[in-house]
Structure formats: structure tokens, C-alpha cells
């Protein structure tokens, strides 16, 4: 692991020590460490000759910065309008309950970090989440929890395209069954 001093030195040098580039510097730091460790932030403040409070202000204002390490997997759940209308809030509640996480927080076993976002811009898949860079669309609270449990167990669930395929066929058979049963009841 690279020493805090050295890392900050490198990052700051990339941006010619410009204070205006504070946000990109913090983004680089987070990309490197996975979060913003307090020690590194102190060094960064010293290096840029700005008060630590300013850095802390920026870190807590913007949603993408984290002051604590993240879990093994990150759940990025879309809470955009379309996903919301299609029940993303219920998925969010289910995830929070099932894995005992709060938005932005990490589960106790450090398996999952839960980060709901405003919109992923993938509305055709709503409701949608990204876990470890894979998209999972057309979710229900149950299917989301199932996918996450599988990921926790190290089993990679089917990808979005295959899943959509599966859902389609399931939907079809279910519909067909329904149609059949409706037909039957009517006949009776």
C-alpha cells in the first residue's frame, strides 16, 4: 500500500497543485483507496494550504464521496422517476431490510454498500440496479434480493440480457396459463 504522503503528492502534482481541481483530486483519491481516509484528507489540506473543514464540506456535500470503506459489492439502485413509478422504492426498502443497510451505508458483514442514485439513464430497463458493473433490469423486490443473495454467495446471476430472455419466457407461460384458467372459468 502506497503511503498517504506519497499518494497525495502524486495526485496533487497531476493537477499542478491547483486548489480549483480539489474535486478531481478527491475523486482520484477515492478511486485509489475506495473511500476518503481521514489521514489522506489531512495531508491534502496541508498540501493545498486550505482548511480541512473545506475538504470535509466538499466530501459531505457531494453524494459520490465516501468517508468510510465500501463493502465487497456496491449496489447502485436507480431511484429515477420511471424506476420509482415501477416500484423502485419498494426494492430499496426490501434491500435495506434484508441486508440491514442504510442508503449510502455498508452492511455489517461488509458484503454490500448500498448507494441509491437519482437516475442511471437506463429507463428502458426500469426498475434497474447495477451491482459490480453489471446491469439488472426489470426487478421486483424479490428478484433483487435473490440476485443479491446469489452475488453474496459468489454465484453470478444471469446477466441482464439473459435475464430479460428468461423473464420473457416466464411472462409468456404465466400469461398463457392465466389465459387458459380464465377461459376455463368462463366456460364453467
Amino acid at each position, binding site marked *: 500500500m502506497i503511503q498517504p504522503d506519497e499518494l497525495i503528492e502524486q495526485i496533487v502534482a497531476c493537477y499542478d497543485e*491547483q*486548489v*480549483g*481541481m*480539489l*474535486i*478531481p483530486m*478527491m*475523486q482520484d483519491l477515492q478511486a485509489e483507496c475506495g473511500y476518503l481516509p481521514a489521514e489522506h484528507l489531512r495531508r491534502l489540506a496541508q498540501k493545498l494550504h486550505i482548511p480541512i473543514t*473545506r475538504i470535509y*464540506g*466538499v466530501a459531505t*456535500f*457531494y*453524494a*459520490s*464521496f465516501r468517508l468510510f470503506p465500501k463493502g465487497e459489492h456496491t449496489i447502485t439502485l436507480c*431511484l*429515477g*422517476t*420511471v424506476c*420509482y*413509478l415501477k416500484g423502485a422504492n419498494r426494492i430499496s426498502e426490501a434491500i435495506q431490510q434484508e441486508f440491514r443497510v442504510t442508503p449510502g451505508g455498508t452492511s455489517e458483514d461488509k458484503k454490500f454498500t448500498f448507494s441509491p*442514485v*437519482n*437516475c*442511471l*439513464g*437506463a*429507463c*428502458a*430497463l*426500469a426498475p*434497474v440496479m447495477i451491482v459490480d458493473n453489471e*446491469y439488472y*433490469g426489470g426487478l*421486483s423486490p*424479490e428478484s433483487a434480493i435473490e440476485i443479491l443473495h446469489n452475488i453474496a454467495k459468489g454465484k453470478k446471476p444471469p*446477466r*441482464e*440480457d*439473459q435475464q*430479460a*430472455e428468461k423473464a420473457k419466457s416466464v411472462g409468456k407461460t*404465466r400469461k398463457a*396459463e*392465466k389465459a387458459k*384458467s*380464465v377461459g376455463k*372459468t368462463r366456460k364453467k
Partner: protein
Amino acid sequence: MNQADVRIDTFKSLELYRESVRGHARQTAKIVRVCCGPGCIPKGARRIYDLFRKAIDDAGKRDITISLKGTGCQGLCERGPIVTVDPGNIFYLQVHEEDVAEIFRETVLQDRIVDRLLYHDERTGAGIRTSQGIPFYQGHVRVAFALCGVVDPESPDDYIGAGGYAALAKVLSSLSPDQVIDEVTQSGLRGRGGGGFPTGRKWRSARDAHGEPKYVIANGDEGDPGAFMDRALMEGVPHAVIEGMIIGAYAIGSSHGYIYVRNEYPLAVERLGRAIGQAQKMGFLGKNILGSGFEFDIRICRGAGAFVCGESTALMASLEGRVGEPRAKYIHTVESGLWGKPSLLNNVETWANVPAIILNGSAWFAAMGTQKSKGTKAFSLVGKVRNTGIIEIPMGMTLRQIIFDIGGGIRNGKTFKAVQTGGPSGGCIPEAFLDTPVDFDELTKLGSMMGSGGMIVMDEDDCMVHVAKYFMSFLKEESCGKCTPCREGISQMLFILERISRGEGEPGDLAKLDGLADLLAGTALCALGKTAANPVLSTIRHFRGEYEAHILQRRCPAKVCKGLFFYEIDPEACKGCGICLKQCPAKAISGERKKPHVIDRAKCTMCGTCLEKCPFTAVKKIV
């Protein structure tokens, strides 16, 4: 030909280079375009691209040359991944990995159509070969998106071959900065980010402003939920955004540019970054652009996840490395913006319109659209509509045409209820106003606004109080907290809405919401706060009866708000399978096997498990 080695330093050499690119393209017999846009990538478009690459490599040397392009968004996200094959513009939908070999063998090598992957007309069932024949694409006019889905966003050669950077050459070789501004002014272009401020006038102010250096900024912080046009644009034709910015910089006399991109769009950051690097190497950015002596360069900044940073002054604060809080705008940012210097900020879609206006002339652009809103506008058409996707249409098309002709109407045979435009600053427009032509002013009259272009369609199952509550909780989270009306006002409005949706509304609540809305519009510091009440006001205005049902009768007509409707089992449809009985967490369901079950309302917690689990759709919501 390798773009990395070419530096274009005169207007003449740009034209020669364009000719050579086109000559090369003419020798290509087949072009396969795999849509790698925001809708198709999550559906596996990249793997399809890789499989085509492999198929082409495996086929080895043939007498025909095949070109494979991973393009930006081609529009119809609903049916992605999309693959098109040229010549013939054969349009395949919902392509899966196992279809690749067949497309390659049949269509690419033997000019035969794979009928099963075509779009099929709903009535006749006939396969439609090209996108032009598909209802979704009727009425599209692509200006900003002209090359999106056509060119490979990672290839500057592709962009140049399609006429890219010709507008820049025209500007630098034959137009004065004033002439450029006049051209943009006469085109009637208005800011595509939502405000609709006349672009030419903004440029003029920036040119006339005193102070050096001046900055040119592209706003790619597309924060409205449900909107992804800007993302598609940045990922699909990054060079068009860059070219527009260089032209703007020349017009106002700037040599420094920034593109501020939303953090959630890593691919847009990557593609813009690559495009900037290419433009620098080829001589479109940097010193002495095309030998004209003009100098300009662009830097990318990633947002860090704050909706308010789409607001001009907050965006600039963020670019300065500070907390993204807006400031009062008695001095405009064109006079004192980034670092206190004159700054010209336009939305990425506005920038992407500029090259086309310069090349085709302002009259061409002004001939499209309505009297006060010229040209075209891109929208992301999403929600309960059948064809989700990105469209670019002339201003003035009616909402009905957009939703029913292009969008194909409402999904699952449901009834249209409202369309939400303008994101959290906009509002919901009901059926009665569907024939309204879409332009900046008409939408504002309805209590909504154009916004950046998200168009979210809602059906009978959507509760308007629930929708208003969603936007208020969104805005409560995203309010920066600097000014009191926004910070406290939104919280109070949300508090009232939550009460109403729990069935605890009071008769005076609508008047209270009105009062708070007035307060916000009149006293909030920035546009986020001033327009924050729009989702509430527009739903009260157009769906007052629904609010009253919640408040006075304690019922939710759309059957969304928990506790304001009931679940009931239809005895006709119930087979007595016992699934709901076993799954019910409140043990509220009783009944013998093979006989209709009953829900005990006193015990029911309205969790909805029975509705989801019933295989016979026997569980119904009733008001």
C-alpha cells in the same frame, strides 16, 4: 490511415483528409453498426459487438471489406440491442448473442434478410426492413443527433467523413466572430438545458463582457431523472459537442473550455476524454487551430453527484473545487462566472446544434419549429409508453403525436393519465392538453416546462399525489440548503404531501401547499428552488379531484397510497390454491383448500404480497 499520426493544419488539408476518408469508406462493401447506447449496452450490446468482431476476424480475408462500428444511441431503446447493416440500412431489433452468426452469414455475406429479427408491423405482421418504415421513427428530424448512431464515437475519421469539423473550418476561414453570433441569433436557437434562453443573445453578452480570460463551458450534468438525451449525445457524437464549443469559443474570444459531466456517466467521460485527445492531436484543439492562429483547449470535469450542480452558478462553484451552492444572479455568469470571469455556459445539446446551424445556415434551422421555439428538440420518451427511447423532433409536434404515434401509446392496454416533462422543475400534463404543441412557451403555460427533455408517461395506475411526493423528496435531498425558502419550504411541502398520502390530510392542506409554492417561487435563490413547487402545483391544478379524494374521502383512486385502498379476493377467479394464505405475513387470509379465500381487512397490513404471489390474478385492489 491512422488518425493518431495525422495533424491537420490547414483548411485545404482538412478537405483532402475528408476526401481520403470518404474514398476509403467507398471501398467498404458492408457496414455493421451495433448500437452501444445507454439502452443497448446494459442489454449486452458490447458482447454482440465482440462477437461480430470475432466473426469478421474468423472469416479471414475476403473480397469484400467489412467495417464494424459500435455506435451511439440509435433511438429505440425498448427493443435493443439494435444492429443495422449497410447498404440497405437493414434494421435488426432485440439481437441476441446467438443471432450474430446468422446475421453475419445471411445478411453481411449473402445479402439475405433475417426476417425474425426485423420489426414487424403490428397489424399486418409484415417485416419492416429499415428504420424509416417503423412508426417510432416517423417524424424524427435529427440535427443534434444527426450523426448519433451513425458514426463510431471513438473514430474522428468517421466524424470527419460525415462532414465533421467542416463548420469549424467555415467559421475560422470565412466568418468573423460577430457574423457567427449573428448566425446563431438568427437561427432562433434557445438553450436546450431547460431555460430556453436565446443562445445568440447569451453569446453576444459573453463577447461584449469585459475581462480576460473568458471561459466556454458545456453543461453535461444531466440530472433530471428519466432524461438521458445528453448522455446519449456525449457518448454518441462527442466530436459534435467539441466542435460546437470551439465555434462558440471563437465567437466570444475564449481559449479555455470545460465540459462538466455527470458522475454517473462514466462512458460519457471516457468517450469525451478520448475525443478531446484526438482533437488535440489532429489540430482541432490547441494552438493555431487549422492554421488560423486561433487557440482553444478543453478540459473535462466530472461532477460528484449533486443535482443542483446543473444550475449555472453552482456548476461554476463546483468547477472551482467548492461546494456546489448557487449564488444570486444579479450579475450574470456571462459577465462574472467561473473565477469571476466572463463565462459562456450552454447545455451539450445546444452545443451539438451549433455546427449544423453554421453549415446549413440560420434560415434552414429557423424554418423548423414554432414561431418562438426554432429547430428540433431531443427527448427521452420513457415511462409507461410502449416504445421507450430517444427521439429528436421538430418543435411544435403535439404531445399526442409524440406519445401515441411515436411512442405507440400506453403499455399493457392501460389508459393514459399524464405526461411529466421538465424533471423536478416541471409538471404533469393531463389528457385534456395532449394536443398542445411542444415548445418552450406552451409547456410553461400549462404549469410545466420543457426542461432538458425527459418525457415520462404515466398511466391510470400512477397516483399524482405519489408522483408529487416523489419529486418533493427528490428535491428535499438535492436542495443545497443555502437559502431558507428552498431548504425549509420543500421539507414542509413534503411533510404535508406525506400526510395526505397516509390519509391524514386536512381540508386546508391544498391552500397551505399553494402558499408554500408561492413563497418558493418568489423568494428562493436559484431556479431549483423557484421551480421546485411545479410538480405539486401542476398536479393540484390538473388533478385536484385526486388530491380531494385523498384528503376528504381517505381513498387513493389510483390505488397506490398504502392504506387508502383495500385488497380483495375475487371469489370467481380464486382457485383456493392456498399460496396467498401461506405467504401472507399478517395471517390475514383464511379459506379452505380449493375454495375461495377471504382477506380479513382488520388484520391486513396492505403489504401487497398476496397480489404479487397469486398465480390467477384473483387478488384485486379496490377503493
